[in-house]
């Protein structure tokens, strides 16, 4: 190195270091990380199993089998296309159930990454949801095979399926953010959630259509659940064109308001809480 004084190099542009955040480090890095982690986690879940992907179908199929026997042989539901409705609902609800279920403890489980690397925190719960999304995607292919085999004819409303999936996906993400962030503060959120998720499964018309309920307080409560309307609309669009659809079930647009408000609130709350907690997560772990 030369000893003579060099002409000072021009000062570099300095950017502020703002500390950790939910998405820190640029959007390209965020999406690449999200994709890479979700994809590897998804692959991992099939690794070293003899039947691989089959297993992700077996669980909903088993549940499906049991419920089918219970509700067609024991309780004798008279619902058109009930078996495929049940199967479809179970698989789509699986996105919410598995997504939130694995996301709730995800931030805590990834302690090492959070505390020792510069890592966009949002990627952690979202990759859990992505894995559930991939699983559901694969399962849906099989489900549509069943639907066709059962004799339901394809209709143009099938093209609206992405709307249904998007609505479920978004609320799954929001709930995952909320739960995973809160779980860092209160470790019993994860335990509570396993119970709450089960309650929610029966509190959503998954194994029964809401149309079998008489008008009652219970029905009003169920109608406040945004998932109820989503699944009722899916039933009309995908499984049974004679089913009433969300608006009719709710009894008019105005009655859909509570569910819509709850939906939006969950999303806002999830994002807000996660954003607020994200910078502090590393210290709380």
């Amino acid at each position, binding site marked *: *190195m030369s*000893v003579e*004084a*060099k*002409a*000072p*190099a*021009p*000062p*570099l*542009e*300095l*950017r*502020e*270091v*703002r*500390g*950790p955040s939910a998405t*820190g*480090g*640029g959007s*390209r*890095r965020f999406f*690449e*990380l999200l994709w*890479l*982690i979700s994809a*590897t986690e998804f692959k*991992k879940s099939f*690794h070293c199993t003899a039947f691989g992907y089959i297993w992700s179908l077996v669980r909903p199929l088993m549940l499906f089998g049991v419920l089918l026997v219970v509700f067609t042989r024991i309780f004798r539901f008279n619902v058109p296309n009930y078996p495929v409705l049940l199967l479809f609902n179970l698989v789509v609800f699986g996105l919410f159930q598995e997504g939130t279920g694995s996301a709730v403890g995800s931030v805590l489980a990834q302690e*090492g*990454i*959070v*505390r*020792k*690397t*510069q*890592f966009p925190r949002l990627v952690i719960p979202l990759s859990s949801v992505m894995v559930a999304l991939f699983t559901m995607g694969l399962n849906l292919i099989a489900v549509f095979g069943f639907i066709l085999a059962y004799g339901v004819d394809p209709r143009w409303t099938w093209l609206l399926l992405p709307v249904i999936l998007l609505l479920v996906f978004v609320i799954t993400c929001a709930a995952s953010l909320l739960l995973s962030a809160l779980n860092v*503060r*209160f*470790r*019993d*959120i994860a335990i*509570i959630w396993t119970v709450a998720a089960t309650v929610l499964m029966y509190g959503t018309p998954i194994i029964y259509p809401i149309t079998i309920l008489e008008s009652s307080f219970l029905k009003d409560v169920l109608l406040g659940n945004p998932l109820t309307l989503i699944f009722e609309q899916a039933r009309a669009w995908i499984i049974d064109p004679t089913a009433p659809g969300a608006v009719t079930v709710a009894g008019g647009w105005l009655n859909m308001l509570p569910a819509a408000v709850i939906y939006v609130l969950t999303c806002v709350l999830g994002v807000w809480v996660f954003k607020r907690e994200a*910078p*502090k997560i*590393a*210290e709380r772990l």
Partner: protein
Amino acid sequence: MAVETTQDGPATPRGRDFDAEPVVIEARGVTKSFRLPVNKISSLKEQITTFSRPDYRELHALRDVSFEIRRGEFFGIVGRNGSGKSTLLKVLASIYAADSGRVRMAGRLAPFIELGVGFNPELTARENVELNGVMMGLERRQARSRLGAVLEFAELEEFVDMKLKNYSSGMLVRLAFSVMIQSDAEILLIDEVLAVGDAAFQQKCADVFHEMRDSERTVILVTHDMGAVEHYCHRAMLLHDGEVRGMGDPGEVARKYLRLNFESAPSSGEDSLGEVADIVVEDAWLEDADGQRATNVEKGEELRFCAELEAKRDVEGPTFGFTFANPDGVEVMGFGVPLGDLPERVAAGQRIQIRSKVENRLAPGRYVVRCWIHRNRNISDIVLYSPHILDFVVFGKDEAGVAFFETEVEFELKGGEGR
């Protein structure tokens, strides 16, 4: 002005002038404290059943820390455990948010707080290198193209498709280190990772650090190892109780650090931190049998180590000690100047020459000579501790152990026919 020195020379100002380089990291008044609950509440039940507000203990990890680092600098951060250096690192790395003050930075920063964090044991080296690259902010294509270089440095080409959980810990560490040095971030943030791998790999790492020191890359190294600080850093900063207690020449900072560590010992009152040591090492070298200076010595040969010191002030009852440490940091041997030969005092301006001769029983490898000078015949009263006044290589056939001894071995078979 900067002074030219040889690469392996004693700790003096390094041969680069950074005044002309642009600032890449600027910290202004960074303050961070943690509220540590006396009883930590981590469940809802406790939150509900605890009526009184929980008591907090405020822990000031960083108080008003300011510094600037210029491009190409190898900057050391030293301090005792709990001095706040890891917190500072995490603030720089965007893992913690500072309470007040601001940090500004130019260029991409790759933090290595711990080797191999973020590795997924279920994935292969190939996948992990890609993942790690993306985490460091590379595009996937770039991350993949690094793979060859990473594996080559780590010497793990054959294991590219093996899952990390099947790696030995040594292999893992090599991979992690290799990923770190191959990340082409402009700024590297490294926390105590120098002592990794076997001797051969350590030598390789040492070479890499030397290279980094002379490159455009900015490196921030957090460590306890004063040898490393003096050896690699252009400049260093001493943190104590979250405050900056010293900044500048690595040798000086290392000395202050050691003073702080011995703070409880009675020290000579007027000696304040930050001044030049009362006795300094002017030169240290090896000689061969003909009295010529040598940079390495063969196993089994005579090892002649010499040093020349100069007293900057009067020192009463000085004692001198030297130790030879191998790459693992083990002080394999050491010697002191016999008490009988030592003067009652050395006066300012006096020069001291020390010559030693010993049969070289050191195992082959790189050695570092450390020097200790005390006063008043009291080993807790340090005048100078220099962890790196010279390094040299012992060459020859490698055998087991850190040192070798001529051994007489008898071998005999006894008893029955065998099978």
